[in-house]
């Protein structure tokens, strides 16, 4: 083996190694692509005509408000274990209208506002609940990441959003004020933890079981008697 050939080989290997490390280093050192600020000024436009994200009929006799945080394990548990029964037996039957409000716990959940903003951007395209369910269902995949915005973007693709529109929405951070307003509303009504449910004017902190919610709903508005 000629020494010149070995030298050329080591040169190519070195160049490839340095170039590869440089590219990987650049990708890792980049700042997170999106961060949603908490110290944002809430403008009237942020809340005008917006009370939250709704599921169910306007004419349902009972409205339940859920204050929740996308990164909170109890909220995720409620969403994936209890909520399907709530949807099927209380919301789809017209007995309950569900109102979801963001209550980000910033001190312990650094990605919660990005998640909330991602869902808000999906709402623009009429797919709030698809993105909402996806974010909650796949929590273990993004919650420990240093930058989950790419993963939320993948979910946006998967639920069928127009991705360039979604990207523009996320980059604009236009719903940061709405999320903060939602958080302040929670504080104003006395929410201190997530999830907390507002049912019939009373707050119920903690993960509720479907049976507990149904019992409360039955007591506030008895189920219509079955027709003979």
């Amino acid at each position, binding site marked *: 083996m000629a020494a010149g050939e070995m030298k050329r080989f080591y040169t190519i290997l070195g160049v490839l190694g340095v170039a*590869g490390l440089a590219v990987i280093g650049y990708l890792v050192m980049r700042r997170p692509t999106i961060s949603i600020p908490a110290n944002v000024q809430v403008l009237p436009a942020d809340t005008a005509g917006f009370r939250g994200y709704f599921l169910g009929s306007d004419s349902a006799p009972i409205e339940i408000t859920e204050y929740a945080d996308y990164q909170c394990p109890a909220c995720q548990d409620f969403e994936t274990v209890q909520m399907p029964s709530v949807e099927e037996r209380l919301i789809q039957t017209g007995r309950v209208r569900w109102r979801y409000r963001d209550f980000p716990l910033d001190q312990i959940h650094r990605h919660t506002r990005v998640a909330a903003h991602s869902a808000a951007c999906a709402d623009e395209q009429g797919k709030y609940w698809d993105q909402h369910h996806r974010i909650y269902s796949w929590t273990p995949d993004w919650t420990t990441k240093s930058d989950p915005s790419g993963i939320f973007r993948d979910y946006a693709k998967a639920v069928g959003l127009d991705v360039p529109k979604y990207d523009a929405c996320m980059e604009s951070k236009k719903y940061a004020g709405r999320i903060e307003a939602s958080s302040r509303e929670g504080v104003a009504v006395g929410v201190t933890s997530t999830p907390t449910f507002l049912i019939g004017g009373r707050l119920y902190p903690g993960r509720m079981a479907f049976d507990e919610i149904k019992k409360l709903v039955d007591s506030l508005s008895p189920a219509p008697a079955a027709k003979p």
Partner: protein
Amino acid sequence: MKYRMAAALLSLAGFFVSLYLYLYKIGRIGTLACGTGGCETVQTSPFSRFLGLEVALYGVVGYLVLLVLSMDTLRRPAAAISSRLLLILSGAGLAFTIYLTYLELFVIKAICRWCVGSAVIITLIFIVALLDWRRRAAPPGSLSQ
């Protein structure tokens, strides 16, 4: 020697491809450069983990070992052990890649370009390792590089 050099360069390239996918998977890189969108589907599928670890991590470690072995074959041309291990390990890597490609095509039904890139790399490493092994095993003068 050219086969071994090729194996080393390919192993280094494979290492960076796997490292890129692994860093994405653990959230150190925001988005994957993947025109088809299939990369995200594959990387967020349950099959992106194997025996409790990220599949990409097997790639990172595997390619690093292949790189060390191929460098050792260059450093000690007469020693058979490294070139034998290079052939065995690249063969195992190729078999695992065939399994992963089957999952992509028929189970996940999405193709990740970076995974295809890694599949091409491990196939080439296996081919050059095989050619190197044949050259070693052949009587002197019967085969040439």
